């Protein structure tokens, strides 16, 4: 019988092996540390600010500033940074206030449009400003647009249901005018992102309409919100309005014709039940066979002793 007895040569190999392994472990962190050292910088970092003003119904505007830095070209949001908002026009300046960015790097501010300073053409210049810190450079962004509003309503004609959108550009002294020759996008809000449902062209009178899409699914009584939006317009920037109706298909009208794989369905698909039963029967059948053999061993022992 050969007993294991490590000779001196094997001990040397073992020691070498230890060194080799240790070396492997040591080299990697050193290399990785070098990489980190190369990228480490002490200077302040450039910041980037994106800024928009969105006009909503009830003569209000939502100012949204997004502050971020770029790390290896990937944007990283800056949290808890103070952003100052101002509005100006025709030599007048109005300080709106300071808002801190949230965890997504966004600072939002909702104000009425009625008291904003405007220039001769009725335009408002909005400014978002980040004054910077020891670690981050300052950033500033301007957004110029004319206050506007979109109104969504519904009507029925010859048993056909329609969505109507009217656009109004508001003047500083109540001299409102229609938003003419513009395309408005229509959406339905969903859990994550608005779902586009169509487009409406606003005529000279600022009004446009389209047939209500009858395939839309609403809540349990068929209520649905329709949102009208003008995006990235040269004059108005972003304008948003919305309204609800109960013309959508009520959700409870939908029913499943057969069991599916969803966890909440009461019955699993048949193939799944059959597969599971075959597997379990096969496995447990063999277990029973093994246990029966054990019982028979016990019985034979009893017989023998008797």
């Amino acid at each position, binding site marked *: *019988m*050969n*007993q*294991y007895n*490590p000779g001196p040569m*094997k001990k040397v*190999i*073992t020691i070498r*092996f*230890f060194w080799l*392994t240790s070396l*492997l*472990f040591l080299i*990697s*962190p050193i290399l*990785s540390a070098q990489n980190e050292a190369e990228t480490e910088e002490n200077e302040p970092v450039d910041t980037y600010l994106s800024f928009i003003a969105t006009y909503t119904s009830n003569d209000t505007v939502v100012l949204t500033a997004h502050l971020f830095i770029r790390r290896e070209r990937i944007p990283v949001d800056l949290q808890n940074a103070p952003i100052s908002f101002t509005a100006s026009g025709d030599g007048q300046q109005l300080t709106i206030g300071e808002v801190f960015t*949230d*965890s*997504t790097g966004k600072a939002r501010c909702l104000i009425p449009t009625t008291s904003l300073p405007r220039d001769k053409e009725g335009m408002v210049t909005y400014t978002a400003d980040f004054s910077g810190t020891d670690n981050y450079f300052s950033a500033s962004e301007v957004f110029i647009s004319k206050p506007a509003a979109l109104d969504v309503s519904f009507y029925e004609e010859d048993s056909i249901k329609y969505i109507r959108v009217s656009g109004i550009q508001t003047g500083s002294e109540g001299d409102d005018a229609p938003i003419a020759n513009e395309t408005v996008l229509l959406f339905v809000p969903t859990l*994550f992102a608005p779902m586009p449902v169509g487009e409406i062209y606003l005529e000279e009178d600022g009004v446009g309409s389209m047939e209500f899409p009858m395939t839309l699914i609403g809540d349990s009584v068929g209520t649905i919100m329709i949102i009208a939006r003008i995006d990235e317009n040269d004059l108005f920037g972003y304008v948003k309005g919305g309204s609800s109706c109960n013309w959508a298909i009520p959700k409870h009208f939908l029913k499943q014709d057969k069991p599916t*794989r*969803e*966890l*909440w*369905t009461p019955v*699993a*698909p048949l193939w*799944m*039940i059959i597969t*599971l039963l075959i*597997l*379990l029967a096969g*496995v*447990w059948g*063999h*277990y029973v*066979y*093994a*246990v029966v*053999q*054990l019982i*028979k*061993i*016990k019985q*034979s*022992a*009893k017989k*023998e*002793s008797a």
Partner: protein
Amino acid sequence: MASEKELTLLKEFTPQIEHTNIKQTVWMIFLAAVIVLGFYALYVQITEGHIVTGMRDNVVWGIYIVNFIFFMGISYAGALISGTLHLFKAEWRKPIIRIAEFITIIALLIGPCYILLCIGRLDRLYYLVIFGRIQSPITWDVIAISTDIFGCLIFLYLALLRDIAAIRDFQEIRIPKWKRKIYTFLALGYTGTPEQKERLHKATDIMAAMVIAIAVIVYSVLAWIFSVTLQPGWHSTIFGPYFVIAAVFSGCGVMIVVMWLFRKIYHLEKYITIKHFVNVGVLMLILAALFGYFTFSDYLTKWYGSERNDELLINLLFDKYYWLFILSNYIGVLLPMIVVGIKKFRTINNITISAIIVILALWVNRYLIVVPTLESPYLPIQDSRPAWIFYNSTWIEWALTAAGVAFFALAFTIGSKLIPIINVSELAESPQEEEKILE
């Protein structure tokens, strides 16, 4: 009745069963203390809630699930190794097969406990039975694991039966009466008659085949819990076989380490020889190659596909988790290949060291499967703070991890005090073959 050869072998192993020396007592007290610390951590977790762990809204699974996968993996590996060696009648298996069987059952008892630690409302655990849906992979896993536990217990019992009967018949052994009564009860009156031998042989063969099949199915089910979801890094068709390979790979590592420990502690140099280390080492080498192949195949297709979230995940693995990724997928794969593949490195100590590194690498591999994926979800959550997005394990989780490892070691120690760690009956079966087995 026990054969003469069996009795000779038993004489050699009875000191382990009869006496516990001071070193072993201290060792067991130490392990018990670690387990008590784990219970304290569990008490803190139950009274204060899961806020004391590193698990949050985004990363809902942490090192508990990693431990679950790890322990279940080594358990299936034990089942696969013992079942396969038994079915193929590999003679060299005889001195080490009991270790594989012990690994199977002990790890199988520890693994599911970590799932329970992940559950916030343990008082609602019975909902799983009342409201359980067959469509849920979690339900598949519960059914599969409970089936596996029963199968492995039966297989272990069948494998132990002849040794239990031999101890019962061995009059020279000095054990308390109650212990002897237990052996008598568990031996089922087995005396080795041709009929009993045949029945035992049939049942063991069938259960050996079953534990292999169950091990593959159960570990695949565990893999499907991940792969049926659309998470980046998890939604992969090769996850089933990949998990099975990784499980047997890590199990081989654990087996080598346990073999080394028992060989040292109980002076089993005569029985567990370089041949056993090399044979299990070669198995580990083959599995290392397969594991490397699966890993490369999985990441290559994800990287080449350039799907946005897969790219983010791969960037995260090569940035934040760079060092762990290298350990898991390079060092853990290449080291056993070098050590076992190159003859001059092929020593017992070297193979054991590479097995330790394989165990660490495979644990880290499971960590890299679970945590970075949860840290890079498809949908951003609102008002997410860095502490909610990124996972940082706490001392509670580490204490409970240490308790699991301590329980594994303690159960092994106690097990070796109840039954010889070498399968005496099998080894005595063919004395003329003994030279070949132990050479």
